[in-house]
């Protein structure tokens, strides 16, 4: 028995494999992965967990999580998750998607799953670019932001304005929890963890769709060093405000 004052500061989550992440230095996928693993463990659902790996930088999800994971075609994660959850409601089903996956090619599947109030948890990593394919325009690219396909910066007259997914989903009656978080400061990391926990509880308690959007740094495609990239997340937060947009718990 540990003594009352003794607090273990660090344990390695059972749900994570010990494999080294392939992510670029300064990328926030690593922190998001760890938080997700911790939450799955804390809620005691490892043996019921079913993850959908999407297309994009996080497509290797199955290398890092010791839970059942299925791959879905680009954008279709929420539909695949719907099928799995409907087939076996006892599973705790989550998707892990980029902004291109969730909000561009997969927007229809994402919105309809949320509109149906599917008992799934969707995680969107919003780094404002298509990371894996080399940093092209995404629906969440900021006005003026340079990407490889908007070399002069995103011109809203040509490419319109960033899509604010959390704000859209917050209006859906089927969505039980919806938040936007960041992990570029320790306090925010803890808030992000709590948001993930609540998004899973929305599913586990059979209340509805859970959604957590992570603002995430992409140093390589932003052409910034990791520290500057982490700072730039604050700038993202001006367009994409952090916070809980809906919580029916």
């Amino acid at each position, binding site marked *: 028995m540990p003594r009352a004052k003794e607090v273990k500061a660090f344990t390695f989550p059972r749900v994570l494999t010990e494999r080294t992440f392939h992510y670029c230095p300064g990328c926030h996928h690593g922190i998001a992965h760890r938080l997700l693993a911790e939450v799955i463990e804390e809620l005691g659902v490892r043996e019921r*967990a079913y993850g959908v790996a999407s297309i994009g930088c996080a497509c290797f999800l199955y290398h890092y999580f010791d839970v059942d994971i299925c791959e879905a075609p680009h954008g279709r994660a929420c539909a*695949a998750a719907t099928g799995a959850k409907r087939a076996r409601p006892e599973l705790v089903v989550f998707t892990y998607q980029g902004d291109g996956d969730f909000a561009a090619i997969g927007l229809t599947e994402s919105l309809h799953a949320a509109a149906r109030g599917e008992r799934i948890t969707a995680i969107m990593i919003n780094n404002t670019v298509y990371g894996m394919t080399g940093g092209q325009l995404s629906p969440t690219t900021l006005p003026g932001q340079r990407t490889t396909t908007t070399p002069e910066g995103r011109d809203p007259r040509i490419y319109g304005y960033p899509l604010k997914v959390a704000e859209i989903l917050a209006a859906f009656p089927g969505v039980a929890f919806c938040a936007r978080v960041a992990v570029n400061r320790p306090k925010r990391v803890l808030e992000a963890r709590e948001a993930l926990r609540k998004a899973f509880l929305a599913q586990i308690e059979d209340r509805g769709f859970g959604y957590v959007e992570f603002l995430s740094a992409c140093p390589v495609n932003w052409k910034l060093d990791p520290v500057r990239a982490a700072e730039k997340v604050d700038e993202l937060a001006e367009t994409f405000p952090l916070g809980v947009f809906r919580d029916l718990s």
Partner: protein
Amino acid sequence: MRVRPILVKGSEAIALGALAAGCRCYFGYPITPQNEIPELMARELPKRGGVFLQAESELAAVNMLLGAASTGVRAMTSSSSPGISLMAETFSYLAALELPAVIVNVSRGGPGLGGIEASQGDYFQATRGAGHGDYHFLVLAPSSIQEAYELTAKAFELAEKYRQPAMILTDALLGQMKEPLRPKKIRVREYPKDWALTGARGRPGRTLRSLFLGPGELRARNELLQRKYRAMRREVRAEVLYAEEADLFVVAFGSMARIVKEAVDVAREKGYPVAFVRPVTLFPFPETTFRKLSRAGVRFLVVELNCGQMVEDVKLSVCGRSEVESLALPPSDLPAPEDIYRRIKRCLVRKR
């Protein structure tokens, strides 16, 4: 115990076959001429503790199918030509992930929106793989309502046996007509599902994936799939009638085979040496059947309700040993048995 016959449409027979096979999940999106399938499933599945869900699109439907199939439950979708095209991307994933799933195409005329009448224009799409990469579906083509029922149930069994998507390819002619069906009990064999994603209880997490970047990995993956496709040849089925001493083999599949069979019977009554061949599995194609029938001096006439597709498979199987002729009837042009009979006669006359 004798099962009393019921009068149902082909589409309904397919749905009943799926239920008889223990299909637990159905996902779909409405399109004519196959709406009787989702409508029957919407009535029956919830009663049996199963899941019916109308998706927002065919894309969503087939990906819901992917998710459900990955958990090891029996699941199905159905659509018609344009909807099947939309599913093509995920077909490739289903095959790559080796998921047992049943897909029904009650096809209609194309290209494009085409028309809703009977057509066999999706033969290439079904047998060559509508999506990307080196993959195949197992494809079954019923030609009666009883067979639609039984083959659909069989499709679930074969899909599980080979961890492989199976397609029922039919069309509006069979889908919309009514015929008596004996909905007999069907036992579908179970196969081990040591790959299914059911939650990692007492075991390491499992993965279903199709991305293989390591050296040689993808090649090994493709070789595994090709071995499986070769093994599937054991399941080849074809109906062959009057093969002895025939000079002309008239070939057709699915609904078209009904009309052709009648024409062949008429020709035989008049004393012509004509035989009838009907591939039931379109993939794997009954190559051996054709190879055995082919020799110098005999001729094959391939009748299709399209611009000539299966004729290519017959030619490949016959491999130059016999002459192969195509009677291609593009959709909208539904022939009567007499039309085919006249063509059979012409074929025989020209031969002499």
